[in-house]
């Protein structure tokens, strides 16, 4: 046998294909859309109701998150303990979540218990009563958590960053301590009635299901009369202007940075290529920012950059926490990396590595029903074509070093800098 050459990398194959599939699309007889993936070998299922009920629709802070959180706190038939017990007893998980665009309610269960727990999901969506006592309790608990989070430099920096980036739009809303005194159970109940309406819902399903599943959904949800209650919505006009902010927290031993700007959205023709540029810059472990600022300088435990896509706006953001002594040095290095990307062509070797990494990530992120469901939701809500991921792959392949240079010049300027810590930055 020939001596093993350990210096030489084994042969590898490029990723040319991902296994992404579209879900089966159905409609309940009252019009509620259902998207389902029947995949996997385990006897389990996830059923997710997505409502356009994110924080951007609320008229004051906390309302949307309380409308969402209160769903588990009492219905006409069950109090909060009975709801919890009914779900816990069957080993199921009922998760409620809210972000700036959506409010979601997800049920994870073994198939054998689906018949017992899905009706509870229906009950909380259609018969919630928002008991005052439960609301007051939740409010005081959330307030305590809020106060604790205000002690973290990363919270201070990211809240301020959002305010500046989304200035003028509904995304700029933020919670303050006084917000907790200005919200009532009625506010959140009204929001629930308007936004957690089945007319405003879409259903996403992943797991091992059979043909009886859709009949069960139809039986529970398809017969409800739907009425439109939601008012018109507009995100508002951005009045973004770049600026530099230092938030002082005298005892902090690290400084948290959030740096970035509003940028193009998912449907824009440059977006996939911008993603390649971002990956080179700060989007993976081998990125420029990570290599320089963590792996060469040791200023931080982690640094990265990302494109954060919301439905009505995307932001480009660099994030890190660095030692307070090296705050200014770290910022200088971030600026230097931007400058390099704007002025020097990326090598073919680095570009190829990043492309392969991105294709590998896409393959990893479309692995199985749960992952595919997430990718599909992104397509669906951003109104992207069904062949989006095929297009995305060919856009990645087509990106060249000139593109990267131009994109860096076009999209990495007029950045807003927020630093929270014990020192000021210039």
């Amino acid at each position, binding site marked *: 046998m020939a001596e093993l050459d350990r210096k030489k990398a084994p042969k590898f194959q490029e990723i040319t294909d991902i296994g992404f599939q579209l879900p089966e699309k159905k409609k309940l007889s009252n019009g509620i859309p259902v998207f389902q993936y029947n995949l996997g070998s*385990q006897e389990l299922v996830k059923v997710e109701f997505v409502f356009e009920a994110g924080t951007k629709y609320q008229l004051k802070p906390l309302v949307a998150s309380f409308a969402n959180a209160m769903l588990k706190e009492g219905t006409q038939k069950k109090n909060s303990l009975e709801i919890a017990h009914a779900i816990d007893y069957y080993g199921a998980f009922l998760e409620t979540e809210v972000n700036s665009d959506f409010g979601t309610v997800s049920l994870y269960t073994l198939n054998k218990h689906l018949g017992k727990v899905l009706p509870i999901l229906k009950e909380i969506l259609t018969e919630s009563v928002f008991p005052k006592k439960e609301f007051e309790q939740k409010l005081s608990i959330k307030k*305590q958590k809020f106060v604790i989070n205000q002690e973290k430099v990363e919270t201070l920096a990211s809240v301020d960053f959002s305010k500046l980036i989304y200035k003028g739009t509904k995304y700029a809303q933020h919670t303050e301590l006084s917000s907790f005194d200005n919200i009532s159970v009625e506010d959140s109940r009204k929001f629930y009635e308007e936004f957690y309406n089945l007319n405003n819902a879409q259903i996403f399903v992943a797991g091992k299901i059979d043909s009886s599943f859709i009949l069960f959904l139809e039986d529970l949800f398809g017969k409800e009369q739907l009425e439109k209650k939601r008012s018109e919505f507009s995100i508002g006009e951005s009045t973004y202007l770049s600026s530099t902010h230092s938030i002082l927290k005298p005892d902090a*031993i690290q400084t948290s940075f959030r740096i970035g700007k509003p940028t193009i959205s998912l449907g824009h023709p440059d977006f996939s290529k911008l993603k390649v540029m971002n990956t080179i810059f700060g989007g993976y472990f*081998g990125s420029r920012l990570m290599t320089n600022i963590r792996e060469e300088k*040791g200023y931080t*435990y982690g640094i990265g950059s990302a494109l954060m896509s919301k439905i009505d706006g995307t932001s480009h953001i660099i994030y890190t926490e660095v030692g307070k002594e090296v705050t200014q040095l770290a910022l200088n290095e971030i600026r230097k990396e931007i400058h390099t990307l704007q002025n020097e062509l990326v090598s073919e070797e680095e570009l190829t590595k990043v492309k392969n990494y991105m294709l590998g990530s896409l393959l990893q992120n479309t*692995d199985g029903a749960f992952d595919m469901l997430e990718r599909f939701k992104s397509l669906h809500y951003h109104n992207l074509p069904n062949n989006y991921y095929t297009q995305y792959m060919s856009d990645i392949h087509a990106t060249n070093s000139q593109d990267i240079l131009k994109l860096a010049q076009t999209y990495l300027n007029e950045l807003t800098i927020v630093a929270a810590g014990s020192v000021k930055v210039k």
Partner: protein
Amino acid sequence: MIEFVKHTLKNGLRVLIHPDNSTPIVTINTVFDVGAKDEDENRTGFAHLFEHLMFGGSIHIPEFDGPLQNVGGQNNAFTSNDITNYYLTLPKQNIETGLWLESDRMLSLAFTTESLEVQRSVVIEEFKQRYLNQPYGDVWLLLRPLAYSTHPYKWATIGKEVSHIEDAKMEEVKAFFYKHYTPQNAILSIAGDVKPDEIIELVEKWYGTIPAGNKYNRNLPKEPKQTEARFLEVKRNVPQNALYKAWHMCNRLHADYYAFDLLSDILSRGNSSRLYQELVKEKELFTEIGAYQMGSMENGLFIVSGKVKEGITMDKANEAIEKCLESLSHELVEEQELTKVKNKVESTDTFGHINGLNKAMRIGYFELLGNADLANEEMKKYEQVSAEDLRRITTESIIPSNCSTLYYLAEKKN
């Protein structure tokens, strides 16, 4: 059920292969039988610092991450008090690249001064970010030495203090590697759409020539039985008082492990759990509360911790926890409540079988504990736990003389 094939190389490396044709991704998981418990008391944080160094280039390959990213792979690692675990996931057609990279760093690291210096500062920043610059971040640095007087579980994985990491020397780093990072101290587990025969051939090719090294025989100091209640009070710049309680419990292989785990579920899993219902919802003494066991391989800790509501004294909060636990030593848990927590374990286990990485890690971990088959026998052991077992362990172990209590107080600001 995780089906697997086992193969042992001549140098002692154990290989477990779980074929799963539902995914285009393969996982290569390597667990080394070394954790923070194997450290010298004056050089704590070493196992974790070492985990960082494992990415700083190996004997024949200057960089670990680049070649992996180049074939569409990703990787990470973690260190605990018991183990150090490295994993990578990549497209199945490129599995050999993963084996090439992993086997070279098992053979030997490059040991460059540069890598040591940089990872030293990265780990110090990690220490600050996660333990010092976070509200309540230093809890484990306080609670571990309170609960353990002798056993090396008394220090946290990150280390006792920053200076131990600052002082680490290259010769110590090398000695640590040759002592612990040998094929006989490692288990390789692979999950994905693979043929076991082909994998065994590839593993023999890349790992077969790595020297077996010396067997490390662990001989850790034993923790003496705790005989009286321990107490510590600290003041910190945090907004809210917190309470932590830790009781000694059995090891991972003991039959009572499953009873302790279910006990923690009875107390705090889900909103219908006892501590949440009694102390958060009914009595409104805490704003959050949790119970869990640490999952340690050797005799571990059973923890209850919570954030105390403003205006409630610490003693009152503490008594309420004790009372809630004491009731479990008098009255048997009802069958329905026991079924509830067992159902939750069953569904968590089933959901855990979706993910290849999860499965590879699980069989590797149990092989390290003694036998990979245990990974598939756990559900049965949970099912066997009776209400009487829960009452018995509570009576025996969840008692004041076996408990360490930490009052973590908010400093009043002027």
